[in-house]
């Protein structure tokens, strides 16, 4: 997690680019001459800001080229100024960056749930039965129908009650807590498979 943030920050600062440029300047210069011909048809160098949307094509440079430090500093300052201008105009406190974070975290949770759904050992099963064996792509788990009354257990059940029922019975394991991160991940995976299906609590 920390590493991922570090990478983003490093990108944002452009300092890394500059440092790299200084250190490698001599080697790069020699290589550039050799590669100049091969790169004639390569795409232009694009610099992307950490907000995920602001991009700038650098005239005269190709993809893979390294900017001189002075140029990098100027471009960074220019882009940040443009973003500051745009930000002053917007009405929401949430940025595209926030949206990226939400999507990334959601995806991470769904992928974790996907893994658990296919791994009987990770859910404490004991007889080789995993969720996907009866529910490929979480089919027939119909998250949109919960909570609803289950005649067989004589009470209104939430999706997580049914998850635990499956862990205890067909999988012969021990139920997991409602706030167990694994439960959260499983719920994220199952509900993601029903994205767009109208909510229909109580449907049998």
């Amino acid at each position, binding site marked *: 997690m920390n590493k991922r943030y570090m990478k983003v920050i490093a990108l944002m600062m452009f300092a890394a680019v500059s440092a790299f440029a200084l250190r490698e300047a001599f080697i790069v210069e020699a290589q550039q001459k050799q590669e100049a011909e091969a790169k004639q048809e390569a795409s232009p160098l694009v610099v992307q800001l950490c907000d995920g949307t602001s991009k700038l094509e650098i005239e005269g440079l190709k993809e893979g080229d390294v900017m001189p430090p002075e140029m990098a500093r100027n471009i960074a300052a220019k882009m940040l100024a443009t973003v500051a201008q745009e930000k002053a105009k917007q009405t929401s406190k949430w940025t595209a960056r926030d949206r990226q974070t939400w999507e990334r975290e959601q995806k991470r949770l769904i992928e974790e749930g996907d893994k658990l759904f*296919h791994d009987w050992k990770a859910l404490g099963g004991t*007889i*080789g*039965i995993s969720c*996907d*064996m*009866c*529910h*490929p*792509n979480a*089919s*027939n788990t*119909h998250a949109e*129908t919960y909570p609803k009354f289950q005649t*067989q*257990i004589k009470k209104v059940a939430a999706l997580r009650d*049914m998850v635990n*029922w*499956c862990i205890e*019975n*067909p999988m012969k394991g021990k139920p997991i807590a409602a706030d167990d991160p694994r439960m959260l991940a499983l719920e994220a995976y199952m509900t993601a498979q029903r994205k767009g299906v109208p909510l229909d609590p109580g449907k*049998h």
Partner: protein
Amino acid sequence: MWPLKWKKREQEYRRERAEFFSAVSLLDRRSFIKVAGMAAGVAAAKTALPPHSFQLVDVVSAAQAQPAFRFAYISDTHLYERQLNERFVKAAMRAVQDVNALNPQPDFVLFGGDLAQLGQVGELDLGKQILSEVKAPIKMMVGEHDWFLDMGDKWKELFGPPNYSFDHKGVHFITLMSVNEKDFWTAKNMTPMQRMLTVAGLDNSAQSRFEVGVEGRNWLKADLAKVPKNRPVVIFSHSPLYKYYEPWNFWTEDADQVQAMLAPFRSVTVIHGHTHQMLTNRIGNIHFHGMLSTAWPWPYAPMGLPKLTVQMDRADPFDEADGTGGGQISVHPGGYVDKHYNLWGRNPVVVSKLYLDSWGKQDAPPAPGFPSY
């Protein structure tokens, strides 16, 4: 006391019901009267129990044509070794008991593939041991769960080549290996067990699509060359020999080519495993019937379901045997079959030759109360 009396009544009811249904599937003119009488008896016993619709109507439909002969099937047992999972072992043994209880005995028993869950030696040996209890001769078919650990070595050692044909009472039977996959594992440096687990995951998109393959199609071509075009042909394949739902390999990639090879024949029936559900299709001259699994039912795929399929009810998760079972196949003298689905704990369902002959206009099986979500 009351519960005891109730239990006794229910046991009696179940016994009569079982007798009734085994009689229905064996019906000839003489026994029709007997079965009709038995149905009346069942109807009388039913007064204390919820009504079912399995009496005279079923007798009449079954009496429409006389099958030439009958065989039974057991399919998709997905055995782990007994120490890990006893449930699947017991289910397989129950299916063996079912076919052994048939009177008269079926001409033979087809095993529909996926004997093992992960193709391991202990699983396949256990499967062989369980199936050795079957009294009737057994015809083996291979499934992907039997194959992709050692690419069929152990299975072939136990049961012989996966492609073979035989003639029985004027019908040409072909067992066709349809679950080959193009190499997806070498590039990914997978171990044999990683390859097996990938194929064993129905919704695992890292694998390739099932296919008969060039070799298999050549073998089939040579085999069919010897068969007169008016002789009924019955093909056993593990995957459905058509395209139903690609992401789950309810699919055979070269199905179109195989169907084209079968097109000149007067009567072709495909009996397949893999899908663990009641499944019916017809493409031109070819009738397709899916088999039930003894281990667990698959849900119907979200799209691509053949129009002629009447879905079985959604399985009740609280009953581990619901939606599973076995069945029989009655072959008619001119070819084509009635497919009997013996769903454990439910009323049996027959998908008849007449239903497929009439493109679903006649003799439709009962609609499900709770179809797929």
